């Protein structure tokens, strides 16, 4: 199996202004009665991209997927696929296939017939169908299960049948609705990588809906974070994690410490923030708002160092009391309570089997982080 690294590293059509978008949502709104599921949303997705829609349940991500599949029509706005407006085209005429969360395997057909179903609808010659089905079975490693009915398969096998069935027609876009939701954790991790390989091998555009951030981070080229029918941010996993655009995104993906404060001054690309947590923060930020504005400094737990003494070179440091310790094996999480009652989380990688600096409950501890450890957020 070839490595994805070389392809992934160079694949970034969204940075190229001349790249042609493959799927375009243009000011799409969808309402169900009084409920607005998708609110004036615009989004572009590129060919061969692995795109993830991430959000809590009810944020409109599934509705978006169903509109692309043709099961729902937008209340207003347009959806374009490869330059073609999809309005009024029924699901059975769209070059898009979907893998359902429930898998939706036909219970009265065996694995082979399930996979062949879509090909038969296209009137493909019988010999060709047989060959394609055999290829698909090989692809998902289910050759010896061809004659089984869905209820004779385990959850992981059903998931692979559903996948084979949805890619059998070589659709332009494959939509995946919580594709790994029904699998247990270990199987889910293995399958994530299988999906990524499959997407590269077939050269398809994948659009996956998930509520599992780890899943989205692992698989996707870009992630759209959705909330209440709106897109909060679209970016690569690293950008979403390291440079969230809002408190919502920062808080939704991973865990984060937020320090609220007011801009107190600016100097050589650095902003000084006077926080309510009892210390001033020096933050690296070139486009900071004017002095007096309320801002939030968001910093991830693993960017904060914890120690019993104040580190001498620290730009930002604050003292507190060790409130809680969570030992996770690969790392240890410390919750430190500041003088104003705020709990700040710091996680330390357990790179050595024994620590020289054992901190324990109720110890005084210093938390320190450099100026570029976090981002300044205005909303």
């Amino acid at each position: 199996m070839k490595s994805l690294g070389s392809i992934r590293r160079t694949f970034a059509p969204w940075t190229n202004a001349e790249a042609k978008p493959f799927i375009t949502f243009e000011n799409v709104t969808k309402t169900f009665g009084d409920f607005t599921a998708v609110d004036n949303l615009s989004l572009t997705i590129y060919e061969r991209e692995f795109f993830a829609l991430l959000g809590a349940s009810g944020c409109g991500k599934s509705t978006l997927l169903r509109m692309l599949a043709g099961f729902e029509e937008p209340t207003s706005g347009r959806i374009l696929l490869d330059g073609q407006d999809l309005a009024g085209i029924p699901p059975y005429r769209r070059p898009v296939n979907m893998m359902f969360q429930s898998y939706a395997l036909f219970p009265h057909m065996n694995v082979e017939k399930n996979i062949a179903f879509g090909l038969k609808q296209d009137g493909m010659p019988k010999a060709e169908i047989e060959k394609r089905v055999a290829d698909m079975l090989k692809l998902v490693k289910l050759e010896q299960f061809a004659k089984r009915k869905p209820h004779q398969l385990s959850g992981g096998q059903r998931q692979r049948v559903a996948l084979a069935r949805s890619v059998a027609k070589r659709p332009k876009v494959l939509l995946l609705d919580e594709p790994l939701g029904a699998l247990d954790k270990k199987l889910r991790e293995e399958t994530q990588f299988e999906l990524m390989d499959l997407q590269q091998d077939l050269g398809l555009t994948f659009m996956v809906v998930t509520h599992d951030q780890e899943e989205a981070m692992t698989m996707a080229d870009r992630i759209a974070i959705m909330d209440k029918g709106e897109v909060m941010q679209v970016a690569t996993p690293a950008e979403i994690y390291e440079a969230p655009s809002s408190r919502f995104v920062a808080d939704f993906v991973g865990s984060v410490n937020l320090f609220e404060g007011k801009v107190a001054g600016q100097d050589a690309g650095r902003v000084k923030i006077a926080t309510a947590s009892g210390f001033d923060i020096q933050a690296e930020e070139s486009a900071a708002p004017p002095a007096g504005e309320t801002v939030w400094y968001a910093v991830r737990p693993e960017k904060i160092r914890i120690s019993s003494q104040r580190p001498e070179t620290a730009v930002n440091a604050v003292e507190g009391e060790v409130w809680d310790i969570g030992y996770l094996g690969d790392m240890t999480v410390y919750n430190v309570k500041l003088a104003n009652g705020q709990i700040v989380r710091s996680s330390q990688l357990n790179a050595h089997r024994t620590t020289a600096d054992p901190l324990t409950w109720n110890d005084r501890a210093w938390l320190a982080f450099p100026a570029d450890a976090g981002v300044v957020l205005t909303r």
Partner: protein
Amino acid sequence: MERLSRFNIVSLVFGFAFLYIPILILVIYSFNASRLVTVWGGFSTRWYVSLLSNQQLLDAAWVTLRVAFASATIATVLGTMAALALTRYTRFRGRILFTGMVFAPLVMPEVITGLSLLLLFVAIGLDRGFMTITLAHITFSMCFVAVVVQSRLLAFDRSLEEAAMDLGATPVRTFFAVTLPVILPAIVAGWMLAFTLSLDDLVIASFTSGPGATTLPMRIYSQVRLGVTPEINAVSTLLIAVVATGVIIASLINKRRDVQRRRDEQAATQG
């Protein structure tokens, strides 16, 4: 499992005795050699033989089978359509009213159903006979089919249909390739129910039949009024045999499928 207490055994025996002694007596006396129904005159199958030459009873049986077959088939189509409409289009006005209206005939006294149909047939000048009995049976057995099919449709995963359409099947093809096969057991069960209901209906048939179209229950009833003959016992025993065989086969098929399914599922989760 808990052991049966004496009380349980007694209640079981009484319960089953209550249910089955009358039928048992009927079956035993159908093999009675004597012409007198209540006097045992030795074992014989002569009444079954003489049944074959009783043209009136045979005619009635033929009419009954034809009515049952025709009405069950049409009622199954209509009942399935009604069930589809009521489960699928959940957002139209007055849906609850319509659902209630479909199910009302289930609890309607048969006499009233029969009488109202009779009035209707007279009013529109339809000659009473085979046709009117069949129409009447469709009317009341359709509701039973609708109930059976609807319960299956409510458990039906709509994403199966979406998956079929997503893979390129038009709505019509989706219905015949996916929906119909999945709900087929309920449709067959509905058909069998409608068939049995039509087979043993006396009241509605009496109201809606005309000369030349007498069903078996009507024939039996009219003969019994002149006195029970052993022939009637014989024909009733045959009816019981037909119905019992059908019920037993249906439940055996169901049971075997269940067992097979459970075994498969076990094998799948282990393998």
